[in-house]
């Protein structure tokens, strides 16, 4: 219930401007990492926006939290995991490849292989081999010779 009230109050808050100048870290390398990570994290209360582009207050909090973790020495995976632990895998725009999600990742390549197989079978079935028309068999050659002799 408390979470719900928090969410509602965040939704009602007047939207600010995506990444604010006061959030930016002084270390450019660290800041670049933070930006890259915040581009794959989903804002929990918006409709399909990343926390990087979102104006919601919670996104700002998440951006600041992410930076805190990075400054504290977390690796990229650790920092993202810390946020996912709290908000669930819903916030990960890149779904983790575990469990049923393997189906998602394998669907494309699997379909490509199937398409390749079916396509190849279809093309083969259309005849016309690469070397040109089939050579005459011995029997056909004999008949042709016979016809030409007449």
């Amino acid at each position, binding site marked *: 219930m408390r979470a719900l009230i928090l969410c509602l109050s965040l939704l009602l808050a007047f939207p600010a401007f995506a990444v*604010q*100048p006061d959030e930016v870290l002084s270390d450019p390398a660290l800041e670049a990492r933070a930006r890259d990570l915040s581009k794959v994290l989903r804002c929990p209360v918006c409709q399909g926006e990343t926390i990087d582009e979102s104006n919601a207050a919670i996104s700002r909090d998440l951006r600041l939290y992410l930076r805190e973790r990075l400054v504290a020495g977390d690796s990229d995976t650790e920092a993202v995991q810390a946020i996912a632990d709290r908000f669930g895998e819903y916030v990960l*725009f890149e779904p983790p490849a575990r469990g049923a999600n393997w189906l998602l990742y394998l669907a494309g390549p699997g379909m490509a292989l199937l*398409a390749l197989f079916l396509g190849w079978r279809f093309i083969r079935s259309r005849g016309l081999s690469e070397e040109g028309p089939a050579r005459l068999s011995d029997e056909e050659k004999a008949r042709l010779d016979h016809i030409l002799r007449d």
Partner: protein
Amino acid sequence: MIAELGHFALILAFVVAIFQMIVPMIGAAKGWSGWIEAARPAALAQFGLVAISFAALTIAFMTSDFSVSLVYENSHTSKPMIYKISGVWGNHEGSMLLWVLIVALFGAMAAVFDANLPPKLRARVLAVQGSIGVAFLAFSIFTSNPFLRMASPPFNGRDLNPLLQDPGLAFHPPFLYLGYVGLSMAFSFAVAALIEGRVDAAWARWVRPWTLAAWVFLTIGIALGSWWAYYELGWGGFWFWDPVENASFMPWLIAAALLHSAIVVEKREVLKSWTILLAIMAFGFSLIGTFIVRSGVITSVHSFASDPQRGVFILAILAFFVGGALVLYTFRAASMQARGAFAPVSREGALVVNNLLLAVSTFVVFIGTVWPLVAEMLWDRKLSVGAPFFEQAFTPFMVALAIILPVGAILPWKRGRFRRALYPLRGALVFAGAIMALVFAVSTGHSALAVIGAGLGAWLIAGAAVDLWLRTGSSGLSRLRRLPRADWGKAVAHGGLGVTFIGISLLMAWQVEDIRVARIGEPFTVAGYEITLESVDEQPGPNYNAIIATMAVSQGGKQIALLHPEKRVYPVQSMPTTEAAIQNGLFRDLYLVIGDEQQGGGWAVRTYIKPFASWIWLGSALMALGGFISLSDRRYRVAAGARQVRAPSPQPAE
């Protein structure tokens, strides 16, 4: 009164559509010419009635008739006239009416222009188109009536969502719908052909212009939407892999596949049943798109009017049309034997590969789009699939497509040789290699994306040029002007794809971003550009209040631009929007955004240098232009078609 007239016309159109669905279909089956001929006036009448209805709603919006509840919900007296009009389709009910209008428009166009179609085929096509009209008119009348009145009309309306009050977005939906619904013509042709049990070169020739037109409109619609996102959302993103964007992208990909496979049917009478299947799927994906946008099952930035009842209705429409067509397909597909034989290395072979790549990439987009839904239903997992997934799963197919395209485009029909095709392309290959080396040399991060994308783009553009050159034979430039329009269209569209490739990859790899607090009069430097915030003023607009900044940009001590980024607040919906100031250039866009005033003084300012951004839309425009050029080819003109059709009478495909 006018609203009631519109409502009444809509109901009449529904009745006419039912007539159009049944009578010509029976006539064609029984061979009764009177019933067959009834299709044309019915199609025209249906269009006329829907047009009256649409005009009535438009008048209600233009005159701000707030007794109509839809107008109250989506309009306001102080809104500029253009947005009063675009407000008609800026909401669920009105956009559904626009959808129905376009269904009827395509039916009427088929009735008028396809005068040379065999009467029975035309009757069946119009009957199927009529049945689509019936379904969506019923949807509009029974679940989304736009003409509902309010008992006590308020003095003013609630205004249109400010994000939608923009020229780019005013015209984005009509083009998108022209594309979505245009594919219904390909569908109607496919179902009519299945009923007749006959698909031949003539059929493919009739379907192609409709598919091409639909594809061109989809291209324009998608490009407008992405351009709007680029300048309006305030940070210059152009594609988000949002479910609703994917919903328009999937029919685009399938329509592109259909365009190419219909060529094979027309020239070589192969791929018939596959082409029929694609036509069914293309419209199927249009319907899935409608379902995604309007049911709200997948949350998205765009979804409006999410309502389970409407969702179920659209799902039923989808199941009926796609399911019905597929059942018909399973019974009749076997009767559509291919005629021509071809070797693996040939134009046909290349087009088969084109189709497989486009179909599989559509599948990848589809599964990524519905995966959150599937995961929640089956495993109760709430998860998201976003840009990172699509970028890695989708891109490889586009890379493969771009590699084979220029070779496939010049391979001869029936049988070709790789070596012989590659020989004229050696110049293009060298050119693409040189571009890759150049991009590698100038990019600091040595980004693979920039090198590969630019190389593929250059390869596509040069390949399109070689294609044109080969078509001229040895007679050179004078012949170039006399080439069939279809050849020009093909080269322009393929080149346009290359331009878009370059734009996307270089923009994504080389973009520079800067976020800071800027104080008035104190210049700062971003990537060699010196930028000064000169002043910030308040200025009221027609229905909003604006804060307008004046920013000077100079390079090497010389001022190159004076830009005015804005921030607007629309009081009626108390919603802020950002209006970025962009100086478009051929090789880079300067993109400035003004944010909030800071407590310690100064303003939050974002600066972006976006290299080659305009190439994304330049390429899209070229693709659309290529489609239009191809459409204007004389083979598709009415008179020319009439002459050609009478000569070879269509043979039943055994």
